[in-house]
């Protein structure tokens, strides 16, 4: 179809990247990009007066597709029954809540003004499944982070000190299974769990492999850096969900501090859903928030970024490649449990959970996430996530934004949480309220930057025309004092524009678009690539139950395949 020209007139524009902070101005769109100006006579004119104009939301970490999400869907019909979505003239039918169907995922994000969502944990062996679900997730640009933290080839290359080959293998993998970034989940611990073992601290060798989690973390971090991948190593740290685990989290961050070196301050590690990883205390009875320890570290170092994994009191579904954690969780809660180990690569676990205000542990978790968000000074280092659906559904983001922007909103809920938990929190003493620009940094500008998406997260000329317009008039709505009104305005976009097309109007999808799928194509030296391929031919025979040629995903299986090419330093 012919691309639309659009002019958004008189909107209040917020664009932290370009230092625009609530300026009334026009934004012009042509050929899917933001441009200086277009001919008004041939353009669609959107009157945005009294509304805010923002870059479309960019989610750095949300479990929206793939084998584990789908297992969650199959596990929880009762969850779907709470939110059945009929077909409309534009939309396919589906289900919502904690494990929404793919079409619904796309629509709900888009109606909330989000345009880019990255799926953060995928077993390479099942990436064709992930990709095919993403093909069916409309409205959004997407990408995947294949899992490397318990990969046999990785551990073997590390053990043999073959760092060049490791980097080349990572490049081969991303290219073969169409991954975008490198994900580590409980490095080493999941391999141990495959023998029924536990998650391990950083310096205990992985059973049968003679490498430690620390070596995996450092080795992979180095490999990612040498490959010049657009996003730094994305890690779910060891000991997740364990009292006192903030120490492991800090050790993890510190273990790669040297690798950053003179890297123009560019972070080399992204510690994800920190809320689950920064507890104090020694057991569940005396669990406490360790947010201040993390905040202190992050405030003093520039090689690391984080996202929060905020919990929201609700009935949701936890799902992670951290199989041993989910086993422990089901042991504690007696809830249903799915485990799915993947040969030579990774694992997965799923447990439904109902976060309750009255529950001491859940209240501490809620407090921990908010404390971390508020105690870290630089919003460019902090991404707002709920680790959907682990902490809460992505559709609760506006509620989390309201907590960040309103002490009143936080206090209202704090008054209702478990009293013992409340007595142990610093949250009530934190007066900080995010500015709107800070919220935008942690939901689009900062996330896009951390993901290396130069054309996203801002409204400068040349940016992708991914735009959200919300009915938010700061003359009438003060998020600090009227957080509910703010939340409502952020819940449904008046307009969402994706690649220059109006896809949402008045909070409803009016046009379905497929979005694209990004993947990283890192060019390594030919010699190295050949060596690694030779290694892999043998390893495939020994380790996998599929043929190497069937493991590699052909581009024809991808709707709007969008390789991001980088030159590696190996």
């Amino acid at each position, binding site marked *: 179809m012919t691309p639309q020209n659009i002019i958004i007139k008189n909107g209040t524009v917020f664009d932290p990247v370009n230092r625009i902070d609530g300026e009334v101005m026009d934004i012009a769109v042509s050929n899917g990009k933001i441009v200086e100006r277009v001919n008004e006579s041939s353009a669609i004119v959107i009157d945005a007066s009294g509304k805010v104009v923002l870059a479309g939301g960019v989610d750095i970490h949300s479990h929206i597709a793939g084998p584990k999400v789908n297992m969650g869907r199959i*596990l*929880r*019909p*009762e969850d779907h*029954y709470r939110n059945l979505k009929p077909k409309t003239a534009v939309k396919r039918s589906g289900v919502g809540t904690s494990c929404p169907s793919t079409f619904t995922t796309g629509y709900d994000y888009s109606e909330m003004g989000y345009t880019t969502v990255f799926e953060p944990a995928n077993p390479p062996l099942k990436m064709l499944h992930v990709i095919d679900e993403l093909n069916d997730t409309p409205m959004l640009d997407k990408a995947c982070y294949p899992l490397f933290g318990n990969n046999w080839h990785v551990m073997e290359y590390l053990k043999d000190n073959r760092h060049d080959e490791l980097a080349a293998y990572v490049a081969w993998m991303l290219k073969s299974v169409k991954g975008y970034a490198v994900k580590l989940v409980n490095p080493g611990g999941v391999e141990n769990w495959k023998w029924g073992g536990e998650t391990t601290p950083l310096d205990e060798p992985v059973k049968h492999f003679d490498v430690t989690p620390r070596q995996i973390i450092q080795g992979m971090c180095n490999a990612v850096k040498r490959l010049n991948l657009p996003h730094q190593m994305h890690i779910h740290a060891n000991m997740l969900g364990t009292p006192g685990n903030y120490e492991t989290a800090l050790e993890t961050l510190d273990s790669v501090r040297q690798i950053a070196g003179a890297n123009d301050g560019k972070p080399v590690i992204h510690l994800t859903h920190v809320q689950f990883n920064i507890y104090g205390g020694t057991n569940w009875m005396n669990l406490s928030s360790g947010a201040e320890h993390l905040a202190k570290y992050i405030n003093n170092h520039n090689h690391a970024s984080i996202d929060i994994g905020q919990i929201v009191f609700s009935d949701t579904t936890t799902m992670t490649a951290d199989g041993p954690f989910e086993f422990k969780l089901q042991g504690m809660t007696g809830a249903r449990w799915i485990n799915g180990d993947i040969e030579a690569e990774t694992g997965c676990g799923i447990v439904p959970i109902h976060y309750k205000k009255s529950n001491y542990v859940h209240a501490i978790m809620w407090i921990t996430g908010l404390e971390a968000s508020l105690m870290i000074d630089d919003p460019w280092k902090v991404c707002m996530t709920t680790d959907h659906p682990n902490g809460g559904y992505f559709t609760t983001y506006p509620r989390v934004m309201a907590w960040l922007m309103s002490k009143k909103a936080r206090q209202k809920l704090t008054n209702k949480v478990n009293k013992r938990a409340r007595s142990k929190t610093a949250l009530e003493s934190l007066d900080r309220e995010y500015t709107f620009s800070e919220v935008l940094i942690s939901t689009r500008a900062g996330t896009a930057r951390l993901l290396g998406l130069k054309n996203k997260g801002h409204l400068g000329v040349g940016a992708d025309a991914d735009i959200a317009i919300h009915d938010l008039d700061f003359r009438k709505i003060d998020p600090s004092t009227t957080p509910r009104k703010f939340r409502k305005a952020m819940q449904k976009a008046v307009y969402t524009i994706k690649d220059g097309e109006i896809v949402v109007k008045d909070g409803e999808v009016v046009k379905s678009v497929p979005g694209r799928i990004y993947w990283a194509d890192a060019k390594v030296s030919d010699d190295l690539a050949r060596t690694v391929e030779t290694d892999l031919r043998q390893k495939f025979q020994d380790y996998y139950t599929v043929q190497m040629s069937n493991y590699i995903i052909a581009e024809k299986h991808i709707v709007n395949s969008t390789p991001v090419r980088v030159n590696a330093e190996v």
Partner: protein
Amino acid sequence: MADITLTAKANPPFQPLDLREISPDNFAGKTPEQIASLPIWIGNHPSTLGAVFDVKGETSATPQDLTITIEGGLPNSRRIGAKMTAGKIIINGQTGIYAGAEMKNGQIIVNGDAGEWAGLAMKGGSIEITGNAGNFLGAAYRGARSGMKGGIIVVKGNAGSEAAAWMSGGLIKISGDAGLMPGIHMTGGSILIGGNCPGRVGASMTGGKIAVVGKTDDLLAGFQIEEIKDKAKIENDKIPGPFYAFSGDNAEAGTGKLFIHKEKNPHLAGYEAFL
């Protein structure tokens, strides 16, 4: 008090009839004409109550004073009386699936057979079925670990398999026979089975009580005998025995109670050696 009568028209459709609008809550304060225009589904086809029923009588302003009488069996119906909170529904004839599902209060009387999932996830009120009940009586939604929480279901005839799955409270009384696995995964509440049961009574139960006055097959291995009792107490009723009293299901580390009639089940006499 007010009465509304819905009389099924001749040759009703054979496709599923979603009749979730039939409840005193929805009828209260409406004229028969308004009631006749309430939406229903005939398969995938949106229609109205008036297409399937003649509506006569008058309604009250509030549901608690309203009795809805349905004349004529509709085995393909769905969700009559679902989520009702007050009043009464009398069904003279067969009813289909989900009668009284998620019911909170009020009364449903089925003078005939009821289909599967009657009283699904019921919270309160009462359902009386003079004929037979289908499978999953008072059970839970797929995947939900909460079945019947409160209220009472009385079945004069037989009930199907998996009655009271995931039941946590309330009472189910079955005068006739029950199908396989009554009380599976139950955590609380009581079941009285007047007749026989083919087996797997109380499978995976962790709490609650089940009494079987008739015959049943071998018990599951997870049950251990505790005593022989003259009577079994089910809510306020004392059921004359004698009963073997068991506890289990130990497979699930459960502490549920089974009362199995001693004289009707001589094949269980071997348990007496463990007393």
